[in-house]
């Protein structure tokens, strides 16, 4: 997309047409009785990728993970792993391991025994198991807890045992079901980075299911946004944020302002959009929008400038009234009610200590943005 500045990225096999995906969902449908959890979904995940499945509860993201692990079989369609059709292969023969949302630690076994469980199943010699378990304990910094039972550990420690157990077998793919869901905010942020380091150092393919967009944005190379069992968009975090392809994606990830309207005219890449109240917006990157289309213009709050006077030379400027504002220290969030009644959210970074043009409640204000600050959504 033209308006997107290039983000430097060394790892991007999805842009390489010659790369073969490692995991492929091919027209996968999964029904439970009348309920369609996954609807004709296709998806490719590449080796060593950190891939996030993001969606609200009930969007089918966990079902996808469970089908990959082998706990559920697709009603129709195929799942390929390293080129091999996974249909009919039971979970205990798949080269994937899962970290469960509930952690599912065996309560009657010590931390050591939990981590070594999969290795023992493999028939690995005892000395080697001990060595690998010690390695894993070191990796998750739980060396002194090896003889404890799960109920003697804190939530964060349990999470790390579950993680160590699921990577102990060195699976080709690690599946993580809401891995940080049960942790408190601070621990969650720390653990996000630990997970990323772990993925890097072990060179594994991670598929993580989450409902937390921040978590997905932080950790993943690419994000698939799911709704009602269908993929809405698959893209890098920056693309998902800056170039959403539908109203749903734009609204789901981060804060957004939407202006509904019709394309009045199209000229090369730029379009004029007329809103219901007659207000006009000029956009530089129109995408597929053609004249006469009903579209939405989506713009993130931080791309909107708020000023007390009409800014000179602004491509788009609208007048309104400060309806609400929140000073957060590092930034200020304005809710501006435009004269046509729409409330626009704008955030301004407080980069200088001087408080110029201090706007207050009920002040008249202008919002303005350049032509390429937002995207035109046809869907």
């Amino acid at each position, binding site marked *: 997309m033209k308006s997107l500045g290039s983000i430097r990225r060394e790892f991007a096999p999805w842009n390489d047409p010659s790369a073969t995906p490692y995991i492929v969902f091919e027209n996968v449908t999964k029904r439970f009785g009348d309920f369609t959890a996954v609807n004709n979904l296709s998806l490719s995940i590449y080796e060593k990728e950190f891939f996030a499945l993001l969606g609200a509860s009930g969007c089918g993201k966990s079902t996808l993970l469970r089908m990959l692990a082998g706990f559920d079989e697709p009603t129709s369609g195929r799942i390929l792993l390293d080129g091999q059709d996974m249909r009919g292969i039971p979970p205990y023969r798949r080269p994937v391991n899962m970290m469960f949302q*509930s952690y599912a*630690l065996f309560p009657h076994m010590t931390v050591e025994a939990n981590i070594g469980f*999969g290795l023992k199943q493999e028939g690995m010699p005892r000395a080697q198991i001990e060595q690998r378990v010690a390695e894993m304990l070191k990796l998750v910094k739980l060396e002194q807890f090896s003889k404890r039972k799960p109920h003697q550990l804190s939530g964060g420690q349990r999470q790390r045992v579950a993680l160590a157990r699921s990577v102990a077998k060195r699976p080709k793919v690690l599946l993580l079901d809401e891995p940080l869901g049960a942790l408190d905010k601070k621990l969650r942020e720390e653990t996000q980075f630990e997970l990323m380091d772990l993925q890097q150092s072990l060179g594994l393919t991670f598929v993580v299911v989450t409902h937390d967009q921040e978590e997905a944005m932080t950790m993943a190379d690419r994000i698939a946004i799911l709704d009602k069992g269908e993929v809405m968009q698959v893209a890098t975090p920056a693309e998902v944020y800056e170039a959403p392809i539908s109203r749903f994606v734009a609204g789901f990830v981060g804060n957004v302002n939407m202006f509904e309207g019709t394309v009045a005219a199209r000229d090369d890449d730029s379009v004029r959009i007329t809103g219901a109240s007659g207000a006009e917006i000029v956009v530089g990157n129109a995408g597929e929008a053609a004249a006469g289309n009903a579209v939405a213009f989506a713009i993130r709050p931080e791309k909107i400038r708020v000023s007390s006077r009409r800014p000179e030379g602004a491509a788009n400027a609208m007048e309104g009234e400060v309806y609400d504002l929140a000073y957060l220290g590092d930034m200020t969030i304005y809710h501006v009610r435009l004269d046509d009644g729409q409330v626009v959210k704008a955030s301004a970074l407080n980069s200088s200590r001087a408080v110029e043009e201090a706007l207050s409640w009920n002040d008249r204000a202008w919002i303005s943005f350049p032509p390429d600050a937002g995207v035109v959504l046809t869907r």
Partner: protein
Amino acid sequence: MSNLAASADTMNIDAAAARPLASRFLSGLVSRLVIIVPYLWLLVFFLVPFIIVFKISLSQTAIAMPPYVPAFSLEDGISGFFSQLGQMSIDNYLWLTEDALYFNAYVSSIVIAGISTLLTLLVGYPIAYGMARAPANLRPTLLMLVILPFWTSFLIRVYAWIGILKPEGLLNQFLQAIGIIDDPLLIMNTNTAIYIGIVYSYLPFMILPLYAALEKMDYSLIEAAQDLGCPPISAFWKITFPLSLPGVIAGCMLVFIPAVGEFVIPDLLGGSQTLMIGKTLWNEFFNNRDWPVSSAVAVILLLLLIVPIMIFQAAQARAQEQSR
């Protein structure tokens, strides 16, 4: 400032200590009473009868009413009490060791109860497992079905088995009708009939604790085991079974303990040659009218059963520790 704070603190403490002294005493009394009631119950209905039985077991048989001496009476006074105390002895216990009948009856009871418990476990575990894995809306019904037999008298249900198991009974009629056997099976009056009777009668006591243990188990543990390369049968032995052990122990104790002393089932289904301590006790008591010896039999039986009861309690405590 610290002085001020300190004096304020002491004032608070004084006020707190002085004011509700009476009410605190009262509430302490109430909470103590709550604990006393169950102990009182145990004292009156367990310890006192046991002391009476124990006392009789140290007495001698007599042709009298009651049929033993000494019989303490308030009229004899304290001196009478002490003189009669001298008449008591452990002869009855020694007698139990002299006659092999008793030893054999104890051993045979424990063996029969042990085999029955194992059979009940083998029958009960799959049922409890099936119930725990059944759809959640079906479970109350299944639970109801397990408890349903209790609505009919235990004695009548055991009698009903006579009708089923006797040579011309329902089972033999059925098997002969479909041509599997020519001559009726002789099940009545054998140990097999006792096993059938005990397994049938005590099955709910096995199923309920097993079900409770299996039902609360997190199914994702099995999935985790399979995910780590463990096939389903192996996952059962490594995860499900160890985690259901408290239920297994509870169920086995609930079956084993009453089965050792079981009288009705061996008497009705087992016939004359069956040797079980419950029947021996009955014979001593009602046929021989030897109250002291039968009391001694009862005391030894109790001591024998205290061991499994203590194992049971230790297991319960451990289960509680783990589920915390």
